[in-house]
């Protein structure tokens, strides 16, 4: 089934939520493994998100303007003796998309009480 244009899938919502939470904690930039770890911990999942699923989602979100990315300074990575990280950041469009995705959820949650009460 094709999803609606502009609609977020659960993994994208999780990535945006985790990314925003990291930004609130003072780390606005995150790399692939870090976000996979955050998503796993938030959702109490048994496994980290699969490589293909994660990086395809990050790529798609970047193209949609929900995330932006840049490669870190190679000297920094070399200094710490590790591979270079591609650092992502949630954009304003990403925050707006997440807010938009939450609205239907809230509406859905309040609908039963907002509806007419049958005697």
């Amino acid at each position, binding site marked *: 089934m094709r999803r609606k244009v502009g609609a977020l899938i659960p993994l994208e919502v999780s990535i945006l939520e985790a990314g925003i939470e990291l930004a609130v904690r003072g780390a606005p930039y995150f790399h*692939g493994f870090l976000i996979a770890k955050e998503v796993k911990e938030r959702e109490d999942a048994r496994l980290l*998100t*699969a490589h293909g699923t994660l990086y395809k989602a990050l790529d798609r979100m970047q193209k949609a303007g929900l995330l932006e990315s840049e490669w870190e300074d190679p000297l920094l990575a070399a200094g710490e003796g590790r591979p270079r990280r591609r650092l992502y950041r949630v954009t304003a469009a990403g925050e707006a998309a997440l807010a938009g995705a939450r609205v239907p959820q809230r509406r859905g949650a309040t609908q039963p009480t907002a509806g007419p009460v049958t005697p």
Partner: protein
Amino acid sequence: MNASLILCLGMVRNWVALYTFGLPRDLREGRRMEIDCDLWEQRQLAEHRREPPLGTAAEIAARALLGAISDITWRAQAGATARADRSIRMNEALYMRAMVGAGVVLALFLILSGIAGVAWYWTLVITIPIGIAMVAIAFFRARQTGGAVGIAVDRMRTKGESRWKWLLLVIGVCVATVVGIFAYLSSLEHWGGLAIASNFVGIIAVLVALSALVLLISDLMGSVRRKTGS
């Protein structure tokens, strides 16, 4: 490092190398570096938490396996986008289209000159298949990526990239041109204006072939020097 972990890391890297093969360099290297970084981070975290290496290896293998379908679909999309981008880029440039046109004209000339050389039947065997192949390559590549000749020029302009294939292609085309012209001229009883023009094209083809040969030899010598030096 644990043997199971080494095996798993190798398998994941090989898989990434396989599905990114043939993509443009930035996409290919980007994905490979990103997965490399991911594997490194996961390994570091596992070591920090003193998790058993077998468990880490199993989790890495599971992540690779469960994401394989997404990898394949990503590859298909990235490949299609890269082809379209390249096609647009190559076709937009006027000189690239001119180069493709020149390639097609040259190839057609080879066919016609081969046909003209009917008196020397053995030249047909050489020139016609080469000419047909050149036309086919020019049209097929033009439809796919903006033209074989365009790509050849593009490749030659990129420093550090291997250009030997393209130099060989240029030499091949020039040799076929010279053979075709020779066949054509041999079939003529009297030389006219067209014959002189053909001679002129033949001389240019020889000069281009010689230049390409010099570049090829210089590249080969440079490669040998680098190998012996390292």
